[in-house]
């Protein structure tokens, strides 16, 4: 098992290749340029294909084509590029094609800036494209998780025939940490590509396969819509994940994902040192949202949601507690980080100190 | 005449576009007065003997409802 000091963006490339992804189509956009650069050198070495597409629109449609052939394929971008990919993502979801999409979020809306943010939460979890569809959204908060979640994303995408998004931010993409690489000798469940009889390969030895999302008859489309809904229900029942920290006797909870969760953990420890019973819930799957960990919190008097936006995940937290617990918000945007001492002050205020 | 032609037209699938009639060099085709189940006046062969199997009707038919059997002169 080898350990490597690695940048978050590079870890995405490494994780994808470790999961037997052999096709990557990207386009330059800060703060995730290293992903394309990494793939431009490493993909050919792995016998794969790297294309720098003419636009994010072209890239997502190349993903659509390659995914239809059954191969594992990935694209990455930041907020503005993900916006351009939305129609393509809706098509991929409608056609039930597996793929991995990476969003290393930056300041928005508009051109915003190249500093980190978490302001594409709604876009990723509520669907920025048209139609009833969902995507599995995984939110790493370390370079190790970036590496592992990328591999798991390919596994989940194939398992449920659905696009999976890795939702990181500029910090996670740019920072370096030690990563324990998957042992390629050992049989890696995430690297195993399942049989795909539906794939487009040329109809030798079988009836033709079709990948199409035009269902012109209302009954046909409605049947498909509910079929997708059932799939999303099944994913929700099986794949919800959250990381809990010092929650057992907590009277106050902080809810945060990604980089915000790392910073909040420090604030939780500071508050605990002052005798405040506070814990942290860190959603890992942003969709399906882990609402189950927000139930039966009888001893909890208040929840503080910490995000790098003006309040998005807070809505899912409120939905989860169903009004039983007041949910408050602390956020920083524009690329500014929520400071652990500021979060600590919020926790103290809520704790009535 | 090197070839004789036997033209068959799928009466119900024809949309009566008239291109085969237009391009037939021997005037062996016409649009039927009676309409088909689609409500189109389909092309019909009215002068089979005059057909030399040139295949123009087959080439220009957008709905592939025409078949042309090319029979060598003298064989049955």
């Amino acid at each position, binding site marked *: 098992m080898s350990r490597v000091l690695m940048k978050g963006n590079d870890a995405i490339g490494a994780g994808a290749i470790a999961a037997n992804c052999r096709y990557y189509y990207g386009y330059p956009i800060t703060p995730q340029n290293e992903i394309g650069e990494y793939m431009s050198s490493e993909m050919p070495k792995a016998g794969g294909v790297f294309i720098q597409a003419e636009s994010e*629109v072209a890239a997502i449609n190349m993903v659509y*084509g390659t995914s*239809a052939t059954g191969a594992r394929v990935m694209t990455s971008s930041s907020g503005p590029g993900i916006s351009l990919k939305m129609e393509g993502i809706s098509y991929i979801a409608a056609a039930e094609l597996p793929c991995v999409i990476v969003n290393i979020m930056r300041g928005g809306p508009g051109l915003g800036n190249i500093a980190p943010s978490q302001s594409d939460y709604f876009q990723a979890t509520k669907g920025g494209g048209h139609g009833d569809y969902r995507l599995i959204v995984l939110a790493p908060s370390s370079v190790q998780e970036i590496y592992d979640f990328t591999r798991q994303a390919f596994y989940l995408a194939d398992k449920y025939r659905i696009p999976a998004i890795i939702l990181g931010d500029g910090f996670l993409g740019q920072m370096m940490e030690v990563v324990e690489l998957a042992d390629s000798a050992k049989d890696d469940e995430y690297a195993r590509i399942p049989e795909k009889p539906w794939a487009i390969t040329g109809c030798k030895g079988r009836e033709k396969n*079709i990948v199409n999302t035009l269902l012109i008859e209302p009954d046909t489309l409605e049947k498909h819509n509910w079929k997708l809904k059932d799939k999303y229900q099944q994913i929700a029942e099986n794949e919800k994940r959250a990381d809990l920290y010092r929650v057992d006797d907590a009277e106050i909870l902080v809810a945060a994902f990604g980089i915000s969760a790392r910073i909040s953990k420090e604030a939780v420890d500071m508050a605990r040192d002052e005798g405040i019973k506070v814990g942290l819930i860190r959603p890992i799957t942003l969709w399906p949202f882990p609402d189950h960990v927000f139930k039966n919190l009888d001893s909890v008097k208040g929840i503080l949601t910490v995000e790098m936006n003006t309040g998005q995940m807070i809505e899912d937290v409120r939905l989860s507690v169903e009004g039983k617990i007041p949910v408050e918000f602390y956020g920083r945007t524009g690329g500014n980080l929520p400071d652990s001492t500021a979060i600590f002050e919020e926790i103290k205020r809520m704790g009535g100190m | 005449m090197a070839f004789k032609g036997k033209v068959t037209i799928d009466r119900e699938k024809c949309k009566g576009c008239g291109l085969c009639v237009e391009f037939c060099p021997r005037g062996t085709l016409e649009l039927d007065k009676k309409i088909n189940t689609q409500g189109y006046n389909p092309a019909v062969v009215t002068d089979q003997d005059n057909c030399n199997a040139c295949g123009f009707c087959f080439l220009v038919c957008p709905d592939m409802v025409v078949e042309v059997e090319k029979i060598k002169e003298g064989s049955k």
Partner: protein
Amino acid sequence: MSTVLKKTRSLEDTKLHYCPGCSHGIVHRLVCEVIDEMEMREQTVGIAPVGCSVFLDAYFDFDIIQAAHGRAPAVATGVKRALPENLVFTYQGDGDLASIGMSEMVHAAARGERITIIFINNTNYGMTGGQMAPTTLEQQVTTTTPAGRDTRLAGFPIQVPELLSSLPGAVYLSRVSAHNPKNINKAKKSIRKAFQAQMDGLGFSLVEILSTCPTNWRMNPVQSIQWLEENMMEIYPLGELKSVEGVS
């Protein structure tokens, strides 16, 4: 001894939904005849556009992917890169290819992707009811150029193969027509050369096929043949715009 001209293997028996006299059906036949003559049906992947020919999967008996409007060349790129031994072609109308999909077309050609684009030019958006397309002629009336296409306001018709001919990645570019037997046969030869150039790995190929649209041109099929001949061929001259050494 007799031979029969009839539907080729790669064509389904499904009744076509196209309007009477529409050239799409003819081009469907040509594409499938070439595929069968090359014995490539089982290795072919067709990319359908958004437009009148969006229903390709009902008419062709081989693997088909339906692409988002304008994005077929990118989808085809993704397929061909994953299946280099397969025959991969897109089938697109003038709106799909030269309007919303211009960037994808140009860059697929610039990259020299080993794909073939079958480009149906009938000077309008057929499926949506006859709006102006990039290939609409000067003064041609459409539902969005009701007084005729005024080039000062709506620009000039685009000649696609000419546009692409400066790109080294494009190895075979031709313009043919489907409006009479002679040209239909020439169109088939051109499609064959384009597919062969692809399978020989030479690079990107495109065949533009002048086509009629009787319904939206507000003519009957026979009149639309004449209109195509008298009006389109002047702006869209037929011929091989590019055929690099090695194309056979």
